[in-house]
């Protein structure tokens, strides 16, 4: 039984300062996860050298891998801290903030771009009106199944982190919002805005900027069929572009 849990954490005091590494040795207890170890550091913020330090900042909420808030790079893999069990991780455990999003402090990043991209592609069903629109049409069971798969996306940012074509140089919209376009385009009510969504992902930084590295599906903790969704949307955007051209 190890006495300590050895951690190496990449820290950063604020968005403008340079990052630095700090090591911690947390007394071992069985059945801990990365979040509970970070909570231990918060209780007793002393680094491996025995010096008092500022407690490590990180984000978390649900603690059951459905919100995506605690996503960070653990031993080089992008994943959620809540489902990263200490007993299953080789030590020293390295913790780094996501590299594709601006760091707020330590392990906390600003993933607002994900929300902005979801807004950009209108990832919702329009049901608001000044009067009762009545019940919507039923979703066929066959369709509901794969749409449910995609609805499990928690916008954690793992696919963005792993995608080589999403970076500071490119304007690529990223895998997660594309899957949502497919889902809402096949929803019977959402399909009313189908053309608009397709037009939106056919512009600059749209679906064509996907380079088919297919890291997204490997990195997705929810195993959402992202590559299938992108391929399907490739077909739909091509058909749509031809229709659009002949109707112009």
């Amino acid at each position, binding site marked *: 039984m190890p006495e300590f849990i050895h951690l190496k954490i990449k820290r950063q005091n604020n968005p403008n300062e340079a990052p630095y590494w700090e090591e911690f040795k947390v007394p071992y207890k069985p059945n801990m996860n990365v979040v509970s170890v970070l909570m231990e550091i918060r209780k007793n913020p002393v680094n491996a050298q025995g010096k008092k330090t500022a407690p490590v900042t990180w984000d978390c909420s649900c603690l059951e891998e459905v919100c995506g808030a605690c996503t960070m790079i653990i031993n080089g893999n992008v994943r959620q801290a809540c489902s990263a069990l200490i007993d299953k991780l080789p030590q020293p455990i390295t913790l780094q903030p996501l590299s594709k999003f601006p760091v707020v402090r330590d392990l906390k990043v600003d993933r607002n771009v994900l929300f902005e991209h979801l807004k950009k592609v209108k990832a919702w069903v329009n049901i608001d009106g000044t009067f009762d629109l009545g019940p919507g049409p039923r979703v066929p069971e066959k369709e509901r199944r794969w749409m449910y798969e995609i609805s499990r996306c928690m916008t954690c940012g793992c696919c963005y982190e792993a995608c080589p074509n999403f970076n500071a140089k490119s304007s690529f919209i990223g895998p997660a919002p594309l899957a949502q376009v497919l889902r809402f385009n096949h929803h019977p009510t959402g399909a009313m805005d189908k053309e608009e969504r397709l037009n939106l992902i056919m512009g600059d930084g*749209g679906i064509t900027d996907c380079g088919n590295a297919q890291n997204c599906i490997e990195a997705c903790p929810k195993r959402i069929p992202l*590559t299938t969704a992108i391929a399907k949307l490739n077909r739909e955007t*091509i058909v749509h572009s031809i229709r659009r051209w002949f109707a112009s």
Partner: protein
Amino acid sequence: MSFMQKYNFLIRKIHSLTGIIPIGVFLTEHLITNSFALGGAEYYNERVEAFQQLPFLVGIEIVFIAIPLAFHTLLGLYYVYLAKNNVLEYKYFRNYMFYLQRITAIITFVFVVYHSYTTRIGRAMAGIEISYEFMNNIVSQPVFFIIYLIGMLAAVFHFSNGIYTFAISWGIAIGPQVQRKFQTICTVLFIALTAIGTAGLIALAA
């Protein structure tokens, strides 16, 4: 919004298409033509002569090879620049392929500039025709044989792997199962074209 941004979809699709038609088709034809050298110097010269007597040859070469190739190359190099490769962090098969696709793009680019200048553009300006003897003079030197082999391998890889990504980008191969089948087809094609290309090179070096 710039022209590139406005027509991003169309430009990307043309980039993807030109890789297969006409460039990939031309590459296949070119490797098969080279393997005519297996039939001996005289036979090879005869076949090359036949090609050189095609009507509107220069026009065909410019419209169906030079322009699509320049378009595909210039945009492609920009797309190479746009990617931030991460094969050290994410060691997945397709990620390695993505990386290799960009590495082979650069190798093929350098090789094609050298190869087309020395064996076509420069020659055409000097008025010398390509023959077995001419090619033999180059590739019988071990250094140039290796340069040609590397250039050929890079081009063949880039084309074979490009078919896989083309099939996805054009919405042909959608699900994971059919994508795996395309992976197999592309691997077989890579092996077949490598065999044809290498046989042709060896015959030209003999």
